[in-house]
């Protein structure tokens, strides 16, 4: 490229710039600029044609003015003119102006594209580079459309100069990132891979960047890059420190290229070819060896560059996770860095070691550094480093060192930075639970957590301790004793009061024998905290009090006194008031037996994944949107993973306190008491986010949580991923998912259950049918923590189903919050007999990708069955009447399920027909009758099922007044046994 001396600079421009710099005030500056703008405008408008030099000078001035922050509304044309100049400096300023100032929808874009096209075709490498840089800098879709096809050609052309190839590769990368669909894949892809062999290191570096990006989408197309990358890497790693001349950086050969090659290899599993793999392992070993050699230079740049390669090498070793020897060596190397005087290295070593800890091969090796890491947690001056140390301790924790690590983390918590306290609390809670050998240690740990960092103990954490205490008898007494002691402290955290209130309400009796913690003492201790607490806690304490009345009848009078006090009965908070009124009445109206039933000890909670773990996952999970993305969205959400999960208001949270007794649902104390069932608490402690009001214990919820075995999980891949973002018409839906029939079959004999479930979404169904009408409730539950957008479930009638079945759907909200559930009501009318079920198509956007799935709606003709009772004589008479050959359908089939008469009976009843006793002479056989109700007609059905237990076979015979119905019912029913 032409090196132009600085003397070539435009004098007028230099004068102008120094004028501006010398301006004493903003006003003076603006005045000077306006004067200059007027001057330039008159020059551009003047009759005299400007020469290239003047044009360049004025365009430069405009650019400078623009960069000072002023608007420029002219001069674009002159800049475009400069593009066609043959002088490098003029062309360059033209391109610069275009890159900085021209927006994509400018009408000049055609002229610009034309100039670029000419330069690309010019065969002048400097001009080609300028054009390529401009395309990449603008990077707009229009540019992509115009040039995406040309650039691959330039990139792989045999006669392109190195600098052009390099620019072309980077330009293509840029366009691919901006609009991947515009970059055509083709035979050039194979040739791009071979650029890894190029003589010119700049070309290789640019090509590696491009390939790394492209291969993520089509790994197989670029698979050949593995061996090329390995051999290139091997050549660099083994080269002498001066071999690569221009690409040697402080005696380190091509450090950035090495890093990029190592990164590219991480897109693939270890090489299959033994020779390639051997060569690669050799490279990795060489890098590890070099780390031990004395440095070739004392300069920090030398060691930084060397370490960059080393860290990337370790990443690759961890990625492969298959070479125990290398993993342990990597760990030892990082161990040395843990004590290095450079903070950066300590930080990076802790970070890398964290991933090493999860490998089975290096876990033990990592554990040997525990003392250093604990020391780092205590002494590091930088919070980011301490955070890494805490992460590493968490990762290296196992049963052998849990007590030590947990106690160190607890100690650290006392002085920890506010920003990371909550995360530390979660980690301690998880480790304590996961590695608890005795549960008293666990209880101690959590209570310590609340004591030290009560504000940061989220609901999940203290719910969890209650869950565990409730489920484990051996720890209940200890827990009661410990919370009692903890509550003695003059100032204790409200979370402690909550845990204490709940535990004493359940298990206070276990310590009541000791006069120091007799019932009245327990009560007065709790009540001394009452007035300092928030509404939610007071509500919980009221529930504790009513439980006390049951546990300790001697406290009844005192507690009734408290409940009766004006401050409770007339409390401004409706929840507290209602509890006080209800509990007071309950305690005076109900007999001891009833009280004992209502206020019985909580049943054990079903074992699930710890809700805390789920929370930690959410905090760090992939759901966290990119901050850059985020900045495009709402600023109110700007704090993504720095902040706390949006915590729900306590009022809407179905916390144990809110519904401890399930009494809120009871309209009055006189009504039959609601048993203390597990339902509410199942919801509360379910591992999904508990926070959404819609997850409140509605009857549907309770119903859903009682469901029979959940539907088998379908892999994500089943969710078709239609690329077009546009909303296709409702008719334009995908085919039903492969297991749609299987899912449908589950609902032939029952009306409620989980219709579908995958990682994102759960669909529950509940329906009822009368005559030819039906109503169906669909419950769509978002299982993620991210909002679904454009959520639209629609019901489609394929074929002529429209005339047979009418389904009215209510619209649902287009957004489904993470963890929330929405309900959709379907009104169904059967117009005439039908054979195929309607389709349910669900579409939504999750994290930016469109999801859609199509299921069969569980509406089958038998849903409109009316059971008919009849005597044996009538049955046989009708049976004979339906004697046309096609009116009968018969099937003989093998039993798929154990042949249990009761189950069969239940299924037949669920199918909809009446079961008639004493009809068939053989008591083993089942006989049923019913009428299918449709708006247009009624179809009488008779059925007979003959099990043969020896052969494990059934014979099923159906006779109906309509031929297709017989066949259809027969098929439906046969699949049920």
């Amino acid at each position: 490229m032409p090196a132009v001396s600085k003397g070539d600079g435009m004098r007028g421009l230099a004068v102008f710039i120094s004028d501006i710099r010398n301006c004493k005030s903003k006003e003076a500056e603006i005045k000077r600029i306006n004067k200059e703008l007027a001057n330039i405008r008159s020059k551009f408008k003047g009759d005299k044609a400007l020469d290239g030099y003047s044009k360049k000078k004025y365009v430069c001035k405009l650019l400078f003015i623009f960069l000072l922050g002023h608007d420029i509304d002219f001069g674009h044309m002159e800049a475009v003119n400069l593009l066609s100049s043959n002088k490098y400096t003029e062309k360059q300023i033209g391109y610069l102006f275009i890159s900085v100032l021209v927006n994509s929808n400018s009408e000049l874009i055609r002229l610009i594209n034309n100039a670029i096209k000419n330069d690309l075709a010019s065969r002048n490498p400097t001009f080609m580079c300028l054009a390529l840089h401009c395309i990449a800098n603008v990077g707009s879709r229009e540019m992509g459309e115009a040039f995406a096809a040309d650039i691959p050609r330039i990139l792989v052309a045999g006669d392109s100069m190195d600098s052009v190839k390099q620019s072309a590769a980077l330009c293509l990368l840029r366009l691919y990132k901006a609009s991947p669909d515009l970059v055509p894949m083709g035979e050039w892809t194979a040739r791009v891979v071979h650029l890894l062999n190029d003589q010119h290191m700049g070309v290789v570096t640019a090509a590696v960047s491009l390939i790394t990006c492209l291969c993520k989408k089509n790994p197989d197309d670029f698979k050949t890059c593995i061996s090329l990358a390995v051999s290139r890497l091997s050549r660099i790693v083994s080269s002498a420190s001066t071999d690569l001349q221009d690409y040697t950086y402080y005696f380190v050969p091509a450090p950035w290229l090495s890093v990029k090659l190592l990164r590219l290899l991480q897109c693939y599993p270890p090489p299959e070819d033994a020779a390639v793999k051997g060569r690669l392992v050799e490279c990795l070993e060489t890098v590890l060896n070099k780390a031990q050699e004395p440095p070739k230079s004392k300069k920090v740049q030398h060691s930084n560059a060397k370490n960059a390669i080393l860290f990337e090498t370790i990443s690759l070793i961890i990625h492969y996770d298959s070479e125990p020897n290398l993993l342990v060596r990597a760990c030892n190397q990082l161990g040395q860095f843990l004590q290095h005087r450079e903070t950066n290295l300590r930080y990076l070593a802790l970070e890398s070691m964290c991933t090493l800890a999860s490998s089975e091969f290096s876990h033990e090796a990592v554990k040997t550094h525990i003392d250093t890491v604990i020391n780092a947690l205590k002494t590091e001056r930088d919070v980011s480093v301490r955070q890494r140390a805490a992460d590493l301790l968490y990762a290296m924790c196992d049963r052998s060192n849990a007590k030590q690590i947990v106690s160190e983390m607890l100690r650290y918590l006392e002085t920890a930075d506010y920003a990371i306290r909550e995360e530390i609390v979660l980690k301690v809670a998880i480790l304590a639970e996961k590695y608890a050998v005795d549960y008293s240690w666990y209880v101690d740990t959590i209570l310590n957590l609340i004591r030290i960092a009560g504000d940061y103990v989220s609901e999940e954490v203290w719910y969890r301790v209650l869950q565990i205490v409730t489920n484990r008898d051996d720890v209940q007494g200890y827990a009661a004793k410990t919370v009692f002691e903890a509550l003695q402290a003059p100032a204790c955290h409200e979370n402690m009061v909550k845990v204490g209130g709940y535990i004493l309400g359940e298990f206070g009796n276990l310590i009541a024998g000791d006069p120091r913690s007799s019932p009245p003492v327990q009560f007065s201790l709790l009540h001394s905290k009452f007035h300092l607490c928030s509404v939610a806690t007071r509500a919980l304490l009221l529930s504790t009090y009513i439980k006390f009345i049951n546990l300790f009848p001697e406290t009844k009078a005192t507690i009734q006194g408290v409940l009766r006090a004006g401050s409770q009965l007339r409390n401004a908070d409706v929840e507290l008031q209602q509890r006080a009124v209800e509990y007071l009445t309950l305690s005076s109206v109900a007999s001891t037996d009833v009280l004992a039933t209502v206020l019985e000890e909580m049943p054990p909670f079903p074992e699930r994944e710890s809700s805390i773990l789920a929370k930690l996952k959410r905090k760090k999970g992939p759901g966290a949107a990119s901050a850059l993305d985020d900045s495009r969205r709402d600023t109110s959400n700007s704090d993504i993973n720095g902040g706390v999960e949006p915590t729900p208001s306590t009022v809407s949270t179905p916390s144990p306190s809110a519904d401890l007794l399930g009494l809120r649902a009871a309209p009055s104390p006189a009504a039959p008491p609601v048993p203390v069932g597990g339902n509410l608490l199942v919801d509360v402690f379910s591992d999904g986010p508990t926070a959404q009001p819609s997850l409140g214990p509605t009857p549907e919820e309770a119903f859903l949580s009682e469901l029979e075995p959940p539907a088998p999980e379908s892999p994500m891949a089943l969710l078709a991923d239609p690329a077009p973002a546009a909303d296709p018409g409702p008719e334009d839906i995908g085919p039903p998912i492969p297991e749609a029939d299987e899912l449908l079959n589950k609902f032939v004999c029952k009306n409620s259950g989980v219709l579908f479930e995958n990682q994102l979404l759960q669909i529950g169904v509940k329906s009822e049918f009368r005559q030819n009408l039906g109503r169906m409730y669909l419950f769509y539950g978002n299982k993620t923590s991210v909002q679904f957008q454009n959520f639209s479930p629609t019901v489609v009638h394929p074929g002529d189903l429209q005339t047979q079945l009418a389904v009215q759907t209510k619209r649902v909200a287009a957004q489904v919050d993470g963890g929330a559930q929405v309900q959709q009501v379907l009104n169904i009318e059967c117009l005439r007999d039908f054979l195929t079920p309607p389709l349910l198509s669900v579409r939504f956007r999750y994290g930016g990708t469109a999801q859609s799935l199509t299921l069969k709606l569980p509406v089958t003709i038998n849903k409109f069955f009316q059971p008919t009772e009849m005597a044996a004589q009538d049955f046989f008479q009708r049976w004979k009447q339906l004697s046309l050959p096609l009116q009968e359908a018969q099937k003989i089939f093998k039993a798929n399920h154990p042949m249990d008469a009761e189950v069969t009976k239940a299924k037949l009843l669920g199918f909809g027909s009446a079961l008639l006793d004493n009809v068939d002479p053989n008591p083993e056989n089942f006989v049923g009758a019913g009428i299918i109700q449709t708006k247009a007609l009624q179809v009488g059905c008779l059925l007979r099922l003959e099990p043969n237990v020896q052969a494990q076979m059934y014979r099923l015979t159906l006779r109906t007044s309509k031929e297709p119905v017989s066949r259809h019912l027969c098929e439906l029913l046969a699949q049920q046994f």
Partner: protein
Amino acid sequence: MIKFFLMVNKQGQTRLSKYYEHVEISKRTLLETEVIKSCLSRSSEQCSFVEYKDFKLIYRQYAALFIVVGVNDNENEMAVYEFIHNFVEVLDEYFSRVSELDVSFSEHLPVACGKAHSRYNHISAVTQEGFLYEALAVLELTL
């Protein structure tokens, strides 16, 4: 992957910014303010990597000038850290001893940006999204 590249002085004025991912102009100011704030508040004992939202800031300070690179999670911090230095060396060589004063108040306006030399080779080839070459050119004009 590099997401943005900033040169900011101690007063918080952005001297150069280059984004490799679309960010609205209005959000850039906010982002830049926050980014520089989190770097300025750090002492020399602290490490040069800051977690900011879901990406990492890697910064180096040269006298009153900060160079901050925002990268996503799996970038090699050390490589980027040293790359910043490489970049500064290029500026230094180009302007013969670069300082913030140079960068911001330099009187001369060089027009040749194709001045090739060894350090520059790394830069143009290393930046994944490329085109610090252009950044250089823009920089020259803002001098």
